[in-house]
C-alpha cells in the first residue's frame, strides 16, 4: 500500500490545481504579513482564509480527483488487492497532498516571519479541516456515479457547514435568547467542524472575550485542557465517521 500511496501522492503534487493552491496560500500569507507587522492579527486574518478556502478546495479537488481516476481505480481493483487497500490508499494520497500543499503554503511564510504558538494552532486546525472535508468529499463521491452530482453534493457540504449552519445557529440564539443556551449552543457547535476549528483558534488567540458571555463560557469550557481534547476528539469523529460510511459504500459498490 505504501507504494500505491507514494506514486499517487507524487502524481497529485504535480497537478496544476495543487500547485496553484500552494501558490495562492503562499502569496496571501506573505501579503498579509507585509500588510501588518503584528503576527497575532495576521493569524486572525489568515484564520478566515483557512476556514473558507481550505474546506472548499479540499472538497472540490477530492471529488474531481476521484472521478478523474475512476478508470485507474477500476484497473487497480481488477488486481489481487482488497478494496479497502485501494480506498485507504487513495484517501491517504489525496489527504496528504492537500495537507502538504497547505503546510507549505501557509507554514513557510509563518516560519520566515516568526511563528508563535497561535500559528501552530492555525496549521493544526487547517490540517484537521482538510482531513474532515476530504472524508466528506469521498462520501459524496461514492454516493453517486455522476461527477457533476458528486461535486454538487460536496459543495453542498461546504455551503452547509461554512455558511448555512452559522445562520441557523444565530437564528436559534436570537429566537430563544431568553433561555440559557450555553450548553445547547456548545452541543450544536460540535455538529459543525468549521465552527469547532474556529473556536479552537479563537481561544488560542485569547480573544474569546470579544464573543461576550457565550465566549466566556466557551473559555471556561474549552480553555481547559479537557476542553481542547474534547473539541479535537469531536473533529476526529468528523474525520472517521464520513470516512467509515464512504468505505462501507465503496466496498459494496458497482464500478
Amino acid at each position, binding site marked *: 500500500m505504501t507504494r500505491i500511496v507514494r506514486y499517487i501522492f507524487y502524481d497529485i503534487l504535480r497537478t496544476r490545481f495543487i500547485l496553484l493552491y500552494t501558490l495562492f496560500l503562499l502569496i496571501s500569507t506573505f501579503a498579509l504579513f507585509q500588510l501588518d507587522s503584528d503576527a497575532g492579527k495576521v493569524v486572525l486574518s489568515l484564520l478566515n482564509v483557512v476556514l473558507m478556502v481550505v474546506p472548499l478546495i479540499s472538497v472540490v479537488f477530492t471529488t474531481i480527483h476521484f472521478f478523474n481516476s475512476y478508470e485507474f481505480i477500476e484497473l*487497480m481493483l*481488477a488486481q*489481487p488487492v482488497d478494496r479497502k487497500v485501494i480506498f485507504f490508499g487513495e484517501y491517504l494520497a489525496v489527504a496528504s497532498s492537500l495537507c502538504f500543499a497547505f503546510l507549505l503554503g501557509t507554514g513557510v511564510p509563518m516560519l520566515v516571519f516568526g511563528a508563535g504558538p497561535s500559528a501552530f494552532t492555525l496549521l493544526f486546525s487547517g490540517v484537521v479541516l482538510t482531513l474532515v472535508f476530504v472524508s466528506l468529499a469521498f462520501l459524496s463521491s461514492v454516493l453517486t456515479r455522476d461527477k457533476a452530482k458528486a461535486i454538487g453534493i460536496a459543495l453542498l457540504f461546504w455551503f452547509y457547514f461554512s455558511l448555512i449552519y452559522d445562520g441557523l445557529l444565530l437564528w436559534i440564539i436570537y429566537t430563544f435568547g431568553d433561555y440559557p443556551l450555553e450548553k445547547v449552543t456548545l452541543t450544536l457547535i460540535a455538529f459543525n467542524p468549521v465552527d469547532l476549528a474556529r473556536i479552537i483558534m479563537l481561544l488560542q488567540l485569547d480573544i474569546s472575550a470579544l464573543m461576550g458571555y457565550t465566549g466566556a463560557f466557551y473559555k471556561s469550557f474549552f480553555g481547559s485542557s479537557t476542553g481542547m481534547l474534547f473539541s479535537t476528539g469531536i473533529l476526529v469523529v468528523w474525520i472517521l465517521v464520513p470516512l467509515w460510511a464512504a468505505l462501507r459504500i465503496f466496498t459494496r459498490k458497482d464500478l
Partner: protein
Amino acid sequence: MISIKDVCKSFGKIKALDQVTLDLVKGKSYALIGPNGSGKTTLIKSILGLVIPTSGDIDFDGKSIFGDWKYRDRIGYMPQIGRYPDNMRIGQLIDMMRNIRKGTGKTDEELIDAFRLHKMYDKRMHALSGGTRQKVSAALAFLFHVPSLILDEPTAGLDPVSVEILKEKIMHEKRMGKLIIVSSHILSDLDELTGDVVYMYEGRVQYNDTVEALKEETNEARLGKAIATLIRQRELLTSVSDSR
C-alpha cells in the same frame, strides 16, 4: 475454470445481465460479442468482482469469488479505456503493479520489449497518445504469468504493426493452454484469435458454441458474416414469436 450460474444484474430498471449461465474452460479462447449495451462489459466486470451481481454465483476454480479478492492473481485484465494518473510515469505504473502482485515471481516482459516501452519509462501518462496508453494496458495485462486473460477491446486504437504484435502474443498464450476471453467489435481479429463464440444480446447469452459450428450453422465462411446471419435469424424468430 470460471463457471457462471444464473447471474442476474440490474441497474435500477435496466437488466444488464439476465440469467447468464456460462462455463469458461481452461485452454479455450472465447470471443465475447454483442451490440453496445448487451452486457459484455458488465459480465467481464462481474468476473473481476468490480460489479456485484444481484443474484447467481460465479466460481473461479471451484471457489466462489464473492467476498474474495485473492483469485484475481490468476487473471490478467486489459480494460477498454486505459486512463492513468496524468503525472505518473510508465515506469512507476509498472513498478506499482509489480508491487501489488509481489508473490507472483518472474514477470513476462515480452510485450514491453516488443512495444519498446523500456525507452519510455520516464514519460508521463499525459504525454502519451491513446495508442501508447493502450500498449501500456496490454503490457500490464500480460506482465504476470497468469492462467487466464480477459481483454476488453484489445486492438481498438492500435496501429497495424502493434495489432499484429498483440495478436501474435495472444495466440502464443492460447497455445500455452490459457483461458482467453476477448471482447471486441472487430470480428476479423476474433476470427483468428478465438475458437469459441459467446454472443450476447440484451443481457442474455444467445449463442455459445465453437466458431466452426457457428459457421456451419449459418453457411458462412467468415465470422463477421456468420454473426450477421445469426442475428438476422434470431430477429426473425423473435418477430414470429412476438406476433403470435
